[in-house]
């Protein structure tokens, strides 16, 4: 039986969403504060119960994986909250972010077809609303792509769940543990549905638009928080599914994402589009880690996505401050105009490139090591090639940040953005020096 404290985080987010929604029309600021408080409360409850004995209900599991991933989802969602401007068009934004986080938490704990589907759809639908809310052309385009592809992904997932149910007679996700033609097909379809949210090739088409024209809060959530939740779901499933289907499907999608994401990102001059394609590549590293079948794959995948999230949030935050459709030239001399924004952006890009002192260096370490341990040599070669490409295009942007040509126009950074940049940079730098602070708990919490 699930205990009441185990449900508390979900209750915080659910009631928080209602409260934020009620406050939104009259008191948008209060709505933001409520949402932040709800997320913090949820994260704190999860943190407090991190080491409590695991529990299990018919729909949700309350174990180390669900708690740690849920906590990271809440923190990343808090980061996305900073992207909402108080006077912006999306008054309902805070409530939507809470709903999406609620979906994320369900996804991280899902042990049943119903909860998995519910969690996934909650994230998708809340994000669709968040995407289209400004009702601009770019926002509608991004939201539309997200919706259509999301619906296709959801349909695929449902088909997979239905097949698994038909083959095994149960809707419990344990059903995937068996073998056979039907279950193999079911797993492949399920995987495809989840790959959509990770933006793996060939389900990546929504990402560049999401990162470029769309509201940044939606992009931040779709890029960081929702990916953490999906990785958690994949981690839970990857011990159940037949390994060969898993290795082939995720391996192909992961390898293709690494190559395509990096190759296309190489040619982007728009910062948002570059980050979008690079996020495809980073999802590819995570997927190949899970495909490798290494014993450490689970912790490696979660660690990687966890160190990716703060770097992405910081980079997106600076991009947002530079204005819509920011291009590489807008970064020129940023560090001299706004030391905090420039420094945080440089650190974030260095982390994405995987150079020390940044968490990304150890992210690269853990992914390469998992691929070596699993003997996935082709994927390792792809990951090395991808990192080589990444080194070039990220550093191209870093080079401009330090260019000695001060431009008088300094972007405006509200207090929430400054706080986000500080916290994200601190997380990136600290994990760049002491990766074990995150890796040790993950190792002990994961099954």
């Amino acid at each position, binding site marked *: 039986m699930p205990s009441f404290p185990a449900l508390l985080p979900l209750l915080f987010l659910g009631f928080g969403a209602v409260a934020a929604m009620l406050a939104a029309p009259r008191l948008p600021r209060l709505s933001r504060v409520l949402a932040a408080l709800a997320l913090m409360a949820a994260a704190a409850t999860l943190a407090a119960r991190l080491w409590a004995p695991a529990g299990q209900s018919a729909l949700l599991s309350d174990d180390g994986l669900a708690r740690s991933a849920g906590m990271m989802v809440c923190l990343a969602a808090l980061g996305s909250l900073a992207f909402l401007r108080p006077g912006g068009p999306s008054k309902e934004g805070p409530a939507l972010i809470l709903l999406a986080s609620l979906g994320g938490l369900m996804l991280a704990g899902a042990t049943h077809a119903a909860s998995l589907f519910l969690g996934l759809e909650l994230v998708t639908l809340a994000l669709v609303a968040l995407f289209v809310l400004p009702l601009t052309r770019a926002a509608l385009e991004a939201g539309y792509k997200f919706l259509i592809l999301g619906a296709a992904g959801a349909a695929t997932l449902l088909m997979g769940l239905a097949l698994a149910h038909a083959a095994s007679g149960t809707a419990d996700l344990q059903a995937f543990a068996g073998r056979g033609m039907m279950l193999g097909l079911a797993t492949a379809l399920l995987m495809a549905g989840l790959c959509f949210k990770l933006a793996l090739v060939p389900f990546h088409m929504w990402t560049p638009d999401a990162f470029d024209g769309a509201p940044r809060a939606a992009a931040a959530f779709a890029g960081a928080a929702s990916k953490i939740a999906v990785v958690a779901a994949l981690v839970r499933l990857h011990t159940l599914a037949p390994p060969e289907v898993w290795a082939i499907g995720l391996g192909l999608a992961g390898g293709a994402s690494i190559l395509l994401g990096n190759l296309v990102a190489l040619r982007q001059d728009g910062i948002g589009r570059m980050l979008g394609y690079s996020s495809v590549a980073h999802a590819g590293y995570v997927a190949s880690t899970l495909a490798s079948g290494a014993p450490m794959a689970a912790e490696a995948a979660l660690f990687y996505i966890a160190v990716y999230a703060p770097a992405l949030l910081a980079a997106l935050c600076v991009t947002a401050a530079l204005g819509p459709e920011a291009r590489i030239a807008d970064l020129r001399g940023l560090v*001299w105009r706004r030391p905090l924004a420039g420094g945080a952006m440089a650190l974030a890009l*260095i982390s994405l*490139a995987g*150079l*020390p*002192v940044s968490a990304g*260096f*150890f992210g*690269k*370490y853990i992914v*390469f*090591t998992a691929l*070596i*341990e699993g003997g996935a040599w082709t994927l*390792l070669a792809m990951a*090395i090639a991808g*990192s*080589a490409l990444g*080194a*070039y295009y990220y*550093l*191209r942007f*870093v*080079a*401009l940040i*330090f*260019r*000695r040509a001060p431009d008088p126009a300094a972007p405006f950074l509200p207090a929430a953005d400054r706080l986000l940049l500080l916290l994200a940079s601190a997380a990136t730098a600290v994990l760049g020096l*002491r*990766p*074990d602070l995150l*890796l*040790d708990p993950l*190792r002990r919490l994961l099954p």
Partner: protein
Amino acid sequence: MGYDMELTALILLPFFGGIAALFAGRFGRDAERWVSIAALALALVILILAFLTPGDGRWIAFERFDWAPSLGMQVILAMDGLSGALLVVSLALGIVSVIVSWKITEHSGLLNAALLWTVAASNGVFLSFDLLVFAFFWELMLVPAFLLISVWGHGDREAAALKFLVFNAVAGLGLLAAVFYLGASGEVVTFDAFEVAERDIPHGVQVLLLLGFAAAFLVKLPVPPLHAWLPDAHTQAPTAGSILLAGLLLKTGAYGLFRFPPMLFPEGFATLAPWGMVLGAFGSIYGALLACGQTDAKRLVAYTSVAHMSIVLMGICGGVYFSLMGAGVEMVAHAFSASALFLLIGALYDRTGTRDLRELGGLQQSAPRFAAAFAVFFSAALAMPGTANFLGEALVITGMFQVNWIFASITLISLVVSVVYATRLFKRVVFGKARRSGVVEDLTAREMGPIVLLAIATLLFGMLPQLLMGALEGAVTAALAPVAGP
């Protein structure tokens, strides 16, 4: 022996000194420079004290503690004569580079921080025997050096900096992959080089892993055809940046080659060493010939670095006592002489606004101290007897004759060519009429300090070879036969 932290301090002092320098500018004029010098000088004192305390035979000092045990990451710092000599080079050149950039006021906090971080990271490279930590510092070096070129450089500095960074970061991936493989392939995850050295790695795997290591080291060294980043990076970098690039970063490549391949992959190294010698022989001639054709003085010195480091590569791959000893001596000697030449050319550029050999000249009339300094370091560049460079190259050639007379003869030819480019440079800059450059103000006291220091080092090690050779003895013997951990 108590819980010593002296080696850790050699890395942390410059690192935190750099952070302090970043903010010191607010507390007074030139405060960031004095902070930097103080941090480096203090580290130098600690280093000298470490030399004076008795070690345990093979190592002058040894430290080991956990960093991130769950990743198999330990801090294993060990200093023998080779690391020690290179640390002296690193700290001394750090001080020199701070003094040399005294007049640069633009973002000088970050400038001094970048100088100190470069020193800190290369100290980490010279000391680490945990391969993951080694790789960490190896990659870390790139970032501050990149900033040095990109922010305070000349001309097309951003492109040069990016080229430097991308070449080295991409090559570093080979090292990373090999190191990660070594870590993951043991029974327990460990990157302890001493433990890895005792493993029985199959020959084919050794060759592959060594290729990964070599990619990073040979690009950093650099040896043609992997040198494409170097001429631009050296030329566009500010003087302090060129000093650290030539004096320090190139040496990390040589150090890595010297230390790890013979220790970790003895059989694989034996297989690949002849190819290394071929590359070295080619590079020594190629670099020297290209140096002859340059008109930009800085570019010329950059190509001489290619030639000299190729000779170092040949010495290391030669694998006999004399060639290894020569490579070690040449590493230290070249660090002093090349950085001194960059310093002099930088000073000349500050005064005349040109580095073009066709426009310079007549230094011996207007600036005798300048001319004398040039004379000392030109003779070092062409390996005149009496300089440490002569000692190094003579030893390499002696050793190479034991290995293969063809490679030895090629090195000799490269030495002959070095006479050509050095005399050409000397003649153009020091003698003749002052062409466009006009009357040049002589070296100031602040410039003379570092020059005298570097000249003393060059001549001292040349005249009293046993000083340096005695220190290198342990490392050379270890490179001959695989090391056992203490």
